[in-house]
């Protein structure tokens, strides 16, 4: 039948398009991996000889080491603070009515569309005025604001998917609101909380533009250190670091997908 040949052809074209687009998405990662194992300091394709030495150099480079450590400090604090603030607010947002609810929600979600350089400049000026510039506090505060929308969304989605009859059952059996919250609601929310925290941590660790404004030499995070390196040097150490970065990130995403179900977290499961 001509109809089915036609449909098969369409399906084939569709699949080809998807494969090409996936190729576009992974091309930089593949190319940077080839470059990282190239023995020569100058970029050349295909490489003449292979080596691990750029990995050793990247790991030994002091600015990368400091940036990694500073990044971990900033990320640990900011993602945890954002998780606590975001989870509590998502709960209030989902369950309660209160004054200025919409306004407060809009303000806290606005960092999604406000350019990071504007947020960074704002925190820089603010910090300079109260003498906090060069401190971790301003970097952490800035990151909390930037990652909060992602925690809010993640926790809100799991609150919406939560079956409230468990909570009502506990309450009707005489459990206090606090007891219901701690023994029923919180355990049921764990996947949403973990994914919200994981997203917040990964975004904070990789945040660059605002960090460039609010970090000082002493508090420089890894993306800022990498940016400075790319501007000054051209050897493949940066490629080696990128490969480690890509591998670690992909591993975390695979983990998140296996244990938390990314489709559910991102709210993209087919409804019917």
């Amino acid at each position, binding site marked *: 039948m001509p109809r089915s040949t036609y449909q098969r052809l369409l399906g084939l074209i*569709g699949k080809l398009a998807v494969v090409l687009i996936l190729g576009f998405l992974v091309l930089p990662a593949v190319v940077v991996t080839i470059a990282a194992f190239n023995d020569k300091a100058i970029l050349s394709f*295909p490489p003449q000889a292979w080596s691990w030495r750029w990995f050793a150099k990247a790991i030994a480079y002091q600015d990368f080491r400091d940036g990694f450590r500073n990044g971990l400090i900033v990320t640990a604090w900011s993602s945890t603070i954002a998780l606590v603030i975001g989870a509590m607010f998502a*709960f209030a947002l989902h369950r309660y009515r209160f004054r200025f609810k919409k306004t407060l929600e809009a303000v806290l979600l606005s960092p999604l569309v406000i*350019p990071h*350089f504007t*947020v960074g400049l704002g925190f820089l*000026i603010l910090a300079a005025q109260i003498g906090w510039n060069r401190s971790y506090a301003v970097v952490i505060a800035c990151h909390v604001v930037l990652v909060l929308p992602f925690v809010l969304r993640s926790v809100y989605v799991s609150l919406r998917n939560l079956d409230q009859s468990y909570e009502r059952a506990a309450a009707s059996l005489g459990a206090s609101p606090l007891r219901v919250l701690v023994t029923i609601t919180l355990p049921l929310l764990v996947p949403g909380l973990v994914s919200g925290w994981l997203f917040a941590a990964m975004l904070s660790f990789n945040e660059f533009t605002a960090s460039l404004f609010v970090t000082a030499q002493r508090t420089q995070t890894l*993306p800022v250190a990498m940016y400075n390196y*790319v501007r000054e040097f051209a050897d493949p150490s940066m490629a080696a670091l990128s490969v480690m970065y890509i591998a670690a990130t992909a591993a975390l995403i695979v983990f998140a997908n296996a244990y938390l179900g990314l489709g559910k977290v*991102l709210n993209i499961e087919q409804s019917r």
Partner: protein
Amino acid sequence: MNPQPFLRTFTAPAVLCAFGFLLALAAVLQFSLRAYVPGSLDPGGFTLANFTDLLKPLYARVFFDTVVICFLTAVSTLIVGYPLAYALVRTQSAVIKSILLVIVVTPLFLGEVVRTYSWIIVLGNNGFINSVLLNVGIIRQPIQFMFTTFGVVVALVHVTMPVMVIMLAAGLSHIDRDYQRAAESLGAGPIRVFLTVTLPLSMPGVVAGVTTAFAWTFSAFATPQLIGGGRVNMISNLVYQLGFSSFNFPFAASLCVAGLALTIVVLSALRLVARPLENIGPH
């Protein structure tokens, strides 16, 4: 019994956070209205001079270029992202779905610097594409991708892809498949079903995706800075240059304020244009 236990406790930290953020934005607004004192980090008295300076052709040009780059990026990302979002939502295989998800989502968390650096290696004169084309003999001279708007847009499309696909997929996944089945049973072919049923019903996702891609591109700094190399400038690059090369923070702040106003105007216009499209769906 209190019907809303913990209300105060749960909203107080969020209020504090919102307050701090608004203070930071207010600081930008305040600085944008202050005079620049050369050689000093402290601003002078109140003035509107920063905003009148913005009208100079040099700055107007950067604003224009920024909007063009954001628009090109958002539209290209939509065209490239749609098939992927469609495949992600409609595939029956859990394995393919997982693979697609991981490939789409991972770049979101790689950060702008790693991705921009990777694109420099792909697009540079000694880079991957030029080396391959030279070796195969298709070209004799390397093609200049670096320092061009094309190169910047290609890298920016890659940067905004994950969020676009996620937004489109969210829109597509909430479409009731019965509409499609009804059209099919009435004899509509696959292209007709897509154009008259699926595409119109996915408009909310399209609008959300384009809006977010536009805003994210506007926010990009490392990509235009490193791939544009000073020859392709966006507002972000100008803000950084003014702030950290000439310490003219008041003028940098006025650029931020004008940029924010521009984003709001463009996004509102987009919403307005898209409203009739969003209402195509079932009532």
